[in-house]
Structures are given as C-alpha cells and as structure tokens.
C-alpha cells in the first residue's frame, strides 16, 4: 500500500470509537436479562393459540343460536305442511265453484261524439287537424247461478289527425 495511505490508515487506527452511554448500555443489557424469560414466553405465545373465555362464550352462543334456528326451521316446515293440507279443500272448492263464475253476456262500444283538437304541423310542413272520437265501452257479466249482474262502463277515445288542404 502507498506510504501516504498507510499514514492515513495509522491515523485512523489511533482513533478509538466513543464508548456507549450508560442509558443505552442499560437498555441493551435489558434485552439479555429481563427479556430472556419474556422472549421464551413470547416464543411459546406465538406457537400456542389461546382460547380465552370470551371466545368460548361466543362459540356457545353461536351453537345455541344455530340450534334455535334449526328448531324454528323445522317448526316452519311442519307448519307449511299443515297449511298445504288445510288449503287443499280450498283449492278444491275453487275448482268446484265454477257456479260462482261470472260470464260476459254483453259488450257495447257506444259512439258519443267528435271533438276537434289542436292543429299541428308535421315535419313535412303539412298541417293536421286533430279529431277526437269519443266512445263509451260497456261490459256486462252475469252469474248463471243467482242471476247477479256486473256492469262496467269505460270511456275511451281515439285520436285522428286529418290533413288540412292548403291549396
């Protein structure tokens, strides 16, 4: 090595690194002493999964809730079977109750008048006269069994656009 570099090397070697202050030394020594047992227990803690009391309670509660849920599901299922068995005659009654049905016997479409509406101009620049034809639609149903009648009248209208001659 170069003589000048050797001098620098020797100069550096003469320097001694400052010692550690007592605070830092104590803190680091604590790692070797107090933490010795803690460290080992920490290792064990990392390996063993504890099952604390609240987890046990939570598990028991979950089991109880699941059991109650299953019970209600069972009851609901059996109840539904009862409904089915009870509802069968109702369905039968509906099927057999054709006598209660109403049959349409009359429909009418009555013309009531014409009303002129606005005049509009189409995109082709042709004027159209809107004309409303008003009707009254009536329907009558009759029950064959007791002769009861149901009558319904519905107003309706149809709109026509009649081109206006401008010649």
């Amino acid at each position: 090595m170069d003589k000048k570099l050797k001098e620098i090397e020797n100069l550096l070697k003469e320097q001694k690194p400052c010692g550690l202050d007592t605070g830092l030394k104590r803190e680091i020594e604590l790692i070797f002493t107090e933490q010795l047992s803690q460290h080992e227990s920490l290792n064990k803690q990392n390996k063993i999964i504890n099952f604390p009391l609240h987890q046990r309670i939570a598990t028991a509660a979950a089991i109880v809730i699941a059991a109650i849920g299953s019970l209600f599901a069972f009851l609901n299922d059996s109840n539904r079977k009862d409904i089915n068995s009870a509802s069968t005659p109702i369905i039968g009654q509906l099927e057999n109750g054709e006598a209660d049905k109403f049959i349409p016997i009359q429909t009418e479409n009555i013309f009531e008048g014409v009303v002129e509406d606005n005049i509009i101009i189409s995109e082709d620049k042709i004027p159209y006269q809107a004309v409303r034809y008003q009707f009254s639609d009536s329907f009558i149903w009759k029950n064959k069994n007791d002769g009861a009648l149901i009558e319904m009248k519905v107003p309706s209208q149809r709109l026509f656009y009649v081109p206006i001659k401008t010649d």
Partner: protein
Amino acid sequence: MADNNLSEQWKEWFHENGTRLLLFARGKTNSEQDAKDVLQESILRLWKSYSSKDDGTFHPPPIPLAFTAVRNTAIDFARKTGRRLKREQNSEQLVQDSDQVATWFEADRLIDKERANEIEIALKKISPKYREIITLKIWGELTFLEISKALDIPANTAASRYRYGLEALRKILKPNTD
C-alpha cells in the same frame, strides 16, 4: 442458571463489540439517536435469532454477522423513517438532531479532540460505500474476506473500495501532500 450464563455471555460480547457496532451504525444513519435505535434493534434481532435454545445456538453471533445485522437494520430503519425525515426536513427538529450528534471518537486532550473531529467530518464527507468498508476494516477489525461476506460483495471490491476510501480521506485530511 443456564439462562444467567447465556445472559452474561451476551453482555460480555456486547461490552467487547458495542462501541464498534455503534460506530458502524453512526455511519449508516443521520443522527446519533437513529444510530442508537438501529443498534438496539439489531441487537434485539440477533438476540432473538441466536439465543433460541430450540436452535441449539447459545453463543453470541460472530462479529461479521453482527455488522450485517446492523447494516440490514439501518436499511430497514431508513425505509421506515424516510417519509418522516422528508416531512421534518425543513423543521427545527432536524437541526436539533444534528446538534445532538455525539463525537464518534474518544479524545482527552484538546489537540486530539480536534483531530478526532476532523476525522469524523472527513468520514462523513466520503462516500457511504467507502465509509462502511473503512469502518469495518479499521474499527471492526475484519478481514476483506469477512467484509465481503458481511456486505455481500467480492473481496476484491472490498479491498479496492478501502483503498479509494483511504485516498478520499487523505485528500480531505492532508490536501497538501499530493
């Protein structure tokens, strides 16, 4: 009883190597407090790794490995504190930190203190690559082979960086000797 022996072995090992490890940590960090934190963390890591009876390793680690631990911890520490440092870059906190930096080397006489201070400043000025090699070689008392293993670089690279580092220091400390 065995635990006490183990603890004493580690204490003895730390008394022997603590100062040089702290010096290495100082070269890797920006402040004295960071260097102490890095040293403490790296010792804790070594203790956790090497004191486990399950592994059958009771003895303190070889010193090159301890330097590696300090280096890795300093890298992790720099990553963690990088954002904080950026945030504090313009604040007074950083100024206070730099004011609190302790001297790196022991000196009793005033002239020695001046020399020690010059060397410390010079070491801070040179490239961190050179600084770490010089620290490991001079005060860590490692061979180039050990340094190469500790820093995961070829031994020749370690040797050449050492020479470049000394040359850089010479230019700072004795600029008129060219």
